């Protein structure tokens, strides 16, 4: 892209971002509905446990909390992303979804696919399910290694086959690490062979269980290899592939996603966590919690708190203080800040 055009587009984007931050419409609300999970993945960033003793949040509590949003926003403005733990472990998931639809909310789930079969598909689509994201972390051996279950690959692929043939909006997400980086081209072919068209790649943040496993982190050169693979695949145009929103990628920005890096945590993205905490993205350090639905009004918290996410000048510290890309990046992803505001790692610096 000619440099002038690129610079102009980036400038335009920064105005857009400033405007979005000032408006801060809550468009994407996570609901951490359970901490129960049927897998124990090596990279899990969640605090959930396989046999969580924490009870699921009753749907009534969630519905009461979001009630004020309906007076503030037009219907259909907000999408509810049901996450966990593993949301399919909730026996009342379809009822929860139907209750959301009745309030004019769109809803979707993020799942490991273990329990997603035809019957589940029918049940959930008949409750107005609109979108699904399924994790598939490599070819069979690597996926099962990361997910710690010999059946997880088969089940996830089966789920994706059902979903991709239906009306649902969907994508498959792959967490890229040292063991599966080189098999991405084969994984691409596998997805295409199975009619799966939408794919998103992540790296693994050094949070949660992933902290203890060095194999899960990519080196600078491996990160470059990953970004180049995404750029090449997008150019090839056979599959809709994106890099996730997790980091600013420097010169790759125009080539690895449909839009620029923009951490919308607390700007358009909020979450209600299992204990009622009101936060931005669920994977952000829990010290950034802004309130609790059991004693605060969600709308009031959304409108009047979240200052740290909407004015990120405090993030201009450590390596970001002298970074030439700060203006475009604004200090990176919120989920990569520790409790003291220190950055955990910068993907862009690693690739240089």
């Amino acid at each position, binding site marked *: 892209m000619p440099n002038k055009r690129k610079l102009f587009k980036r400038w335009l984007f920064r105005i857009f971002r400033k405007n979005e931050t000032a408006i801060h419409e809550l468009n994407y609300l996570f609901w951490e509905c359970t901490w129960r999970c049927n897998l124990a993945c090596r990279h899990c960033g969640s605090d959930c446990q396989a046999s969580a003793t924490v009870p699921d949040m009753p749907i009534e509590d969630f519905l009461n909390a979001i009630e004020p949003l309906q007076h503030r926003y037009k219907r259909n403005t907000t999408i509810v992303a049901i996450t966990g733990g593993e949301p399919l472990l909730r026996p009342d998931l379809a009822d929860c979804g139907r209750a959301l*639809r009745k309030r004019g909310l769109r809803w979707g789930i993020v799942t490991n696919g273990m329990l997603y079969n035809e019957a589940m598909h029918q049940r959930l689509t*008949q409750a107005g399910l609109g979108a699904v994201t399924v994790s598939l972390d490599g070819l069979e051996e690597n996926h099962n290694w990361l997910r710690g279950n010999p059946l997880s690959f088969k089940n996830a692929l089966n789920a994706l086959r059902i979903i991709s043939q239906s009306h649902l909006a969907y994508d498959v997400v792959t967490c890229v690490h040292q063991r599966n980086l080189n098999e991405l081209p084969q994984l691409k072919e596998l997805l295409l062979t199975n009619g799966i068209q939408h794919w998103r790649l992540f790296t693994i943040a050094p949070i949660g269980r992933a902290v203890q496993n060095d194999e899960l982190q990519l080196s600078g050169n491996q990160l470059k290899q990953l970004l180049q693979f995404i750029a090449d695949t997008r150019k090839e145009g056979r599959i809709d592939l994106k890099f996730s929103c997790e980091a600013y990628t420097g010169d790759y920005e125009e080539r690895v996603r449909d839009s620029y890096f923009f951490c919308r945590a607390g700007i358009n993205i909020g979450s209600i966590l299992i204990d009622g905490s009101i936060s931005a993205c669920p994977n952000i350090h829990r010290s950034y919690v802004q309130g609790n639905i059991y004693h605060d009004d969600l709308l009031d918290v959304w409108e009047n708190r979240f200052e740290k996410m909407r004015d990120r000048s405090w993030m201009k510290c450590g390596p970001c203080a002298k970074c030439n890309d700060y203006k475009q990046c604004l200090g990176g992803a919120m989920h990569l800040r520790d409790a003291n505001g220190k950055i955990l790692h910068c993907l862009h610096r690693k690739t240089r």
Partner: protein
Amino acid sequence: MFKKLQFKKRQLLRVLFGSFTATALMFVFQACYGMPNEDFLLCIHGQVISEKTGAPIPNIEVQSNANGTIVRTDAQGQFDIDVPFQEQLGLTFRDIDQAANGQYATLDTVLNDYTGESVLIRMKSIRNAE
């Protein structure tokens, strides 16, 4: 007052971004750990029956007014149609094989806040078709 005006200005700027620049995609975002927020469709399940006899009517054309999608009812009068996610969903039911399964008047209907349950459509017969 000033705050309100400023908010309106920002909303306007938002619309301008969406319509006049190549940045429309910026509005369609997805949180890293969330699912897609675009191309959101609903699948409407239903059955078409005769208002008079209650019998299922096969081969009725079902059309979504929003995206033009067309499907036909099966032998049990059942259909599944994918429509854009909207509060009000307009559907048109047409008898396209005329006398073959009885003759029915075209029916336009609007579903409000469809929640996923199966819908029952009753079509009126015309002339002595039944």
